[in-house]
């Protein structure tokens, strides 16, 4: 197995991008990444695209070839592959690209993620996202995604001392970070009151506990580490790539409040990298809902079960805390174009490790982690990157 490096990264702004089509979102991110890497289109050996549901959102399948075509690569006939695992599609796309380079099958590889979610009405997008859970035995009876995570929150708050205010602080902290990220969908700080007075979506989760509906795309370029210096002075090494799965339904999990796939992928990643939580300078976790960030911090091993709410309230996960979590603003404030999120997490860590994160820069950041979840935890991808 060869060592792999990220040699370039690009991301569109995230938001409700009415003027931009699905294919143009990808092209914009792809060009940014290639320009950043100093790579020309004809040098690309392979393309992986994470996308959850272009079929439902824009009635388009066969995404791999479409994307390669509009990236101007049709005449090069490169292998172009779509990767799907609901909201973890981006994380898995990155992992497939890492595997391709590590194996020696391909050298210069683009890993991308794209989702265009605002071309359907809100009810239709809720229904499409519900397909990330079990359609027959969760969606059929009226379970929504906020509803499933709300049931995690109910179980968690019944067993551990998590207060409603501590949960809200996750959103307040992520909006603070998002306000310092020029690609974020929401670049406004909020207060605890903003969260606590927002409308209930699925008790106890309110509107400001939930990540938004977002359009966006992100792309990174990978190369073997021993060739990375041909393209960039600031390669970012892939120290670990791990993936795990679990039951598709929430109700079949061993423990409703623990994402065992996060635990498994996290342990594998730390094992592969020979690192522990103490080595991580920042982590991008999958905060599709505020309760998801609480669970992620604990399940990755940064603290014991039941402690993440208190640590969040104490500022431990803030930009200037011991474990900065979601410096990009997370899914909550940066936005959550589902297939693009896993790649955006890598984009954020790459920016931080290169010292290019501007007003949200973590001083001296050398090792960062990404954590991308599909569904309520049936798929998890964890990556560790370092300089």
């Amino acid at each position, binding site marked *: 197995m060869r060592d792999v490096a990220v040699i370039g990264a690009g991301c569109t702004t995230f938001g409700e991008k009415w003027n931009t089509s699905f294919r143009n979102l990808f092209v914009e991110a792809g060009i940014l990444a290639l320009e950043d890497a100093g790579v020309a289109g004809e040098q690309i050996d392979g393309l992986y695209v994470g996308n959850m549901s272009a079929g439902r959102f824009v009635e388009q399948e066969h995404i791999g070839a479409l994307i390669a075509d509009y990236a101007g690569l049709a005449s090069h006939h490169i292998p172009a592959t779509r990767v799907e695992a609901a909201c973890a599609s981006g994380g898995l796309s990155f992992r497939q690209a890492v595997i391709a380079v590590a194996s020696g099958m391909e050298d210069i590889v683009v890993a991308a993620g794209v989702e265009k979610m605002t071309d359907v009405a809100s009810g239709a997008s809720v229904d499409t996202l519900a397909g990330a859970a079990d359609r027959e035995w969760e969606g059929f009876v*009226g379970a929504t995604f906020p*509803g499933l995570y709300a*049931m995690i929150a*109910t179980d968690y708050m019944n067993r551990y001392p998590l207060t409603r205010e501590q949960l809200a602080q996750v959103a307040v902290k992520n909006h603070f970070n998002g306000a310092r990220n020029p690609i974020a969908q929401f670049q406004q700080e909020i207060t605890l009151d903003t969260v606590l007075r927002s409308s209930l*979506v699925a008790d106890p989760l309110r509107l400001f506990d939930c990540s938004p509906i977002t359009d966006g795309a992100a792309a990174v370029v990978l190369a073997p580490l021993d060739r990375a210096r041909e393209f960039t002075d600031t390669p970012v090494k892939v120290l670990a790539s791990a993936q795990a799965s679990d039951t598709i339904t929430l109700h079949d999990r061993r423990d409703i409040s623990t994402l065992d796939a996060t635990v498994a992928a996290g342990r594998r990643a730390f094992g592969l990298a020979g690192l522990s939580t103490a080595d991580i300078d920042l982590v991008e976790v999958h905060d599709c809902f505020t309760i998801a960030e609480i669970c992620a911090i604990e399940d990755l091993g940064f603290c014991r079960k039941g402690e993440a709410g208190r640590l969040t309230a104490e500022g431990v996960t803030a930009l200037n805390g011991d474990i900065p979590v979601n410096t990009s603003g997370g899914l909550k404030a940066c936005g959550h174009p589902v297939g693009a999120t896993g790649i955006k997490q890598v984009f954020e860590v790459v920016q931080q490790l290169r010292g290019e994160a501007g007003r949200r820069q973590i001083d001296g950041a050398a090792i960062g982690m990404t954590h991308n979840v599909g569904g309520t935890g049936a798929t998890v991808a964890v990556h560790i990157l370092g300089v």
Partner: protein
Amino acid sequence: MSVARFWRKIPQRYNLIGTTCTTCGRYFFPPRSFCPDCRRAGNVVDYKFSGKGTVITHTVIRTASEQFEQMTPYVLAIVKLDEGPRITAQLVCAPDEVRIGMRVRPVFRKIAADGDSGVIYYGTKYAPAE
């Protein structure tokens, strides 16, 4: 949902027909045809669940997908059936009535419909048992 896709699950949705593995005694709802514990040594046969169970966790859905928009707010819960399996289901009770640990029993109800003239989907909801 196509008629066939709904129709083939009527035994489960109307009458709670699941399965059990006679090798290890584990129960499955929704039914599985392959026992994850015994694997190829398993022997999986049909089993009719009583439907009695206990609420493990719950929420009140206030923003729903298109098919359920007119029914909000409604109570959604994970129920642990007495035989062991857990299921996700709607509860037929007021939002402030649901509690963790609440005993429930199955009731036959309309779940959703495909528009004004499409298939009506029936199935099982749960009501407070006491």
